[in-house]
């Protein structure tokens, strides 16, 4: 198992190098010159030149890349063109917000996705199944940002029960420990802040998680249907255990194996969807920040964020494979080559 993990870790290196090359190429070869955007249209030629020189943009592109990667390996992703702050600091000050949102969204998506998918499979072709699958179809068809807007109109506007954006009432800011407001509020025992943080989290998490929920519900249904036809389900029933145990302990437990893959992949793509959700809900995470940086040609930040997300994505895949081994005892990684 450990051998397998090491092997997989080594395999991620070329992928990440490739991603860095792709992003670097897009940002520095194909993108327009950032100098006039950063300095404004009226900057003098001398000032522009000086700025380019100072940011190493006059070096040959290959050298720029190696300089960048050399620094990156030491944990230095450069500094933002605008704030002049280290990119790592810019990212990590916003990262907890995005992670909090993504985790809330994947929890929502997994819980309801598995629930709906399981009910649909167990009550196949019933009204529950049809409604569940209709919801799943709508879930994969609604644009995240529009769903968010509609929820704001309804829950914040019409009903007025949930906030329309932001992460927390600034007056309730709990002591900074982890940067995750819910955890921070719990640690400091600040119930008002906790409640407020959760209130702010509900709409963005549902908007972001809806698509994944739909995908997970569909996967769960088909996986459950296949599992429920297996011989060991009949054996479990013949043992006299309750139908609930049959479905959860023997059905869902086996059906879960492919579902976990889907959840893992969804968590990766949630980080992409966060770009849209954070924009809609003015959520102060890396998603909305990245969009701004792309629009302003803040190369170092964009490169840093894309590399970070790609790293997370690749590691998620690895984690999924490891969870696989725990869920399915038949898998033995140490013996298998791949």
């Amino acid at each position: 198992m450990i051998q397998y993990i090491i092997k997989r870790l080594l395999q991620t290196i070329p992928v990440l190098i490739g991603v860095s090359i792709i992003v670097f190429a897009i940002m520095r070869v194909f993108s327009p010159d950032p100098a006039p955007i950063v300095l404004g249209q009226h900057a003098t030629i001398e000032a522009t030149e000086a700025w380019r020189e100072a940011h190493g943009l006059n070096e040959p592109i290959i050298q720029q890349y190696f300089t960048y990667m050399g620094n990156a390996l030491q944990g230095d992703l450069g500094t933002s063109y605008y704030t002049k702050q280290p990119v790592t600091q810019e990212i990590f000050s916003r990262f907890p917000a995005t992670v909090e949102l993504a985790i809330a969204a994947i929890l929502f998506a997994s819980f309801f996705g598995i629930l709906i998918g399981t009910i649909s499979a167990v009550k196949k072709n019933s009204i529950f199944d049809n409604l569940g699958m209709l919801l799943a179809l709508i879930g994969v068809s609604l644009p995240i940002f529009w769903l968010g807007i509609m929820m704001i109109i309804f829950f914040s506007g019409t009903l007025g029960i949930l906030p329309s954006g932001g992460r927390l009432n600034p007056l309730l800011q709990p002591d900074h420990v982890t940067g995750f407001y819910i955890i921070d509020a719990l640690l400091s025992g600040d119930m008002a802040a906790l409640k407020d943080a959760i209130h702010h989290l509900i709409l963005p998490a549902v908007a972001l998680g809806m698509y994944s929920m739909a995908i997970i519900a569909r996967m769960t249904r088909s996986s459950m249907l296949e599992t429920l036809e297996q011989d060991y389900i009949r054996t479990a029933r013949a043992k006299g255990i309750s139908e609930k145990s049959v479905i959860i302990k023997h059905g869902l437990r086996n059906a879960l194996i492919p579902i976990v893959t889907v959840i893992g992949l969804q968590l990766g793509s949630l980080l992409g969807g966060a770009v849209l959700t954070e924009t809609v809900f003015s959520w102060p995470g890396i998603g909305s920040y990245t969009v701004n940086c792309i629009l302003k040609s803040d190369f170092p930040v964009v490169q840093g964020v894309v590399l970070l997300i790609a790293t997370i994505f690749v590691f998620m895949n690895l984690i999924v494979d490891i969870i696989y081994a725990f869920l399915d005892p038949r898998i033995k990684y140490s013996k298998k080559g791949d």
Partner: protein
Amino acid sequence: MSEQNGQEQVLEKPESQLKEIWYSLCRNKGALIALGIIVFLIFVAIFRDFLMPYDPNYSDMGKAFQRPNSEHWFGTDQLGRDIFSRIIYGTRISLSVGLIAVTFALTVGTVLGSIAGYFGGKVDTVIMRCMDMMLAVPSILLAITFMAALGKGIDKAIIAIGLVSIPEYARIVRGSILSIKESDYVQAAKVIGNNDMTIIFKHILPNVLSSLIVRATLGISTAVLDTAALGFLGLGVQPPIAEWGDMLGRARGFIFSAPYTLIFPGMAISLTVLAFNMLGDGLRDALDPKSRNK
């Protein structure tokens, strides 16, 4: 599951297979409704100039923010433009970006996947590693990055969205080819002395067709969604062109004062995406012999 299907269908002739899919599709109510919606959308896209009651770009500030009424069915936006006309105008943009981007991705993906799957070895490794790299970044983030580099415009949106969906098609084609490559009839074609290109185009690709059709149909819905997302983020079309996502992005500030400016463009996106998803699902059911018999 799709691999199994691929193998079972290997023995069928592609033409009769398509016919059977069509019949099975006709028995699926959802897919027929979806097909109806898509035909309607294509009709709107083609004849948009005759269907728009107003010039979509004509701005009359005196008429800004009119609620839906008999004159302006969907109301007017912040610049007094007729939202109904703008949505009709945007239909062609969304559909054409979707169709062209998918066609582009399908073509490039099929070529890359065929080469990787058929020749294997180092070529395979290089191509598929590149695909893995692209898959390691969420597609919408990659598309945004591309758009930032390329600049605004429909043509650029097509390229950005097309590029990021290449890996999916390459993977499908490669996977299917790997499973078909060793089959007896491809071996037989080789023995007779057909060259590689003939074998790929005449013997292998027709068998991959079914899963590609499904993937491409679902791909159109993703492309329409991505187009709208780019527009929403202000990375889509140049103003004042009416594009659904762009309309949403620009009206976002009026979420509480004029919600109708946001409701209708979003419904247009959702309906289009829903239709292609339903058609894609119907096609998949039609292609899956397991569900066909039920």
